[in-house]
């Protein structure tokens, strides 16, 4: 029986992009279902009753939620090619740590950059840059976070790259000025088909943020 693989998606979500990259790396075919974040579908509410958020992977009808958990699930189930996590337990733990760091220390300040103004915006920028600098140090002179191979931490972080233009516009700063190595890494990742096919268009994200989201939150 063929596998039924469905992704509940939302254009522009970095978390959903992670899952799409993982699918593309493994060459997995799936049914992509764009969701409405305001009028949430019955399917989304049923499949993720706890958080009511995307992304949700439905594999033969069974839901898997939370992007990094989904990516690990994909890596374990479709283990025939392109491993995303290392096999060595210590290197695996190291990869999990840095992917988790992106969620804990990059995501929230990044969000505040486009959501806030004035003093709060400046604080968000500072925290965001500090977190990126730590990631840059971790990357060092490696091609990818995993070394020679594109892996879990790269998948976790690269979707934020598609939002860099938005952050720079909102915050009036240049990320490359602070973290040039990270920009080089981002460009390298974008050369991969799995990445450039899965990431949202930075210009479209900017447009959505300025014409819809910031208005919604009373910023425009």
């Amino acid at each position, binding site marked *: 029986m063929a596998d039924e693989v469905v992704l509940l998606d939302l254009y522009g979500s970095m978390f959903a992009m992670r899952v799409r990259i993982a699918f593309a790396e493994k060459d997995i075919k799936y049914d992509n279902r764009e969701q409405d974040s305001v009028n949430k579908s019955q399917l989304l509410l049923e499949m993720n009753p*706890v958080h009511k958020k995307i992304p949700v992977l439905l*594999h033969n009808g*069974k839901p*898997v*939620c*939370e992007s990094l*958990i*989904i990516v*690990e*699930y994909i890596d*374990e*189930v479709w283990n025939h090619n392109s491993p995303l996590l290392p096999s060595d*337990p*210590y290197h*695996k*733990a190291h990869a*999990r*740590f840095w992917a*988790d*760091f992106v969620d804990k220390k990059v995501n929230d300040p990044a969000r505040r950059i486009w959501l806030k103004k004035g003093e709060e915006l400046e604080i968000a920028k500072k925290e965001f840059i500090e977190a990126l600098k*730590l990631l840059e140090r971790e990357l060092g002179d490696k091609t990818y976070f995993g070394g020679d191979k594109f892996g879990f931490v790269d998948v976790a972080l690269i979707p934020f790259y598609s939002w860099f233009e938005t952050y720079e516009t909102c915050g009036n700063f240049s990320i490359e000025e602070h973290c040039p190595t990270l920009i080089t890494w981002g460009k390298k990742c974008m050369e991969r088909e799995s990445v450039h096919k899965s990431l949202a268009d930075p210009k479209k994200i900017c447009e959505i943020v300025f014409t819809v989201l910031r208005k919604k939150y009373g910023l425009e």
Partner: protein
Amino acid sequence: MAEVQVFGVWSSPFVRRVEMGLKMKRVEYEYVEEDLKNKSDLLLKYNPIYKKVPVMLHNGNILVESLIILEYIDEVWEGPPILPKDPYERARARFLAKFIDDKCASPIWKACWSKGEEREKAIVETTEALKILENELKGKKFFGGDNIGLVDITANFIAGWFLGLQEFLGLQILTKIISLI
């Protein structure tokens, strides 16, 4: 130096998790008590990003973050499994463990230590989160089924730590989570 060292504080449920995992696998370890008001150079060296416990050392490998350490323990040592073998069940266990850390630990702490409106809000959040967990137990002996697993270890603090705090602070926040206790 022992093969395995755990840096912790006696009061931390996150440290307890790591010790439970090691004990399940019957791994001997050396425990080092830290003073969080006066963090040791070693702790700051091993966990420069978060500067927190637990930290586990194994043959020169430095591990931080309790859930990440538990997965490492499960992968390195034989013995009763901490995570299920089936990928879907593993994803489910990871989801619940993360839910406990993101949605239970913080509101429970706030419910105990904050005041007024903040406390009221935290009590509501705590009750909602714990109801979700209780629903997950659904008449099973443990979150892991017949045996203790990742989620049971992660949720352990709810029984021990939280109830102890409740009594100590003279609060009565939990009224309806019988099966969790």
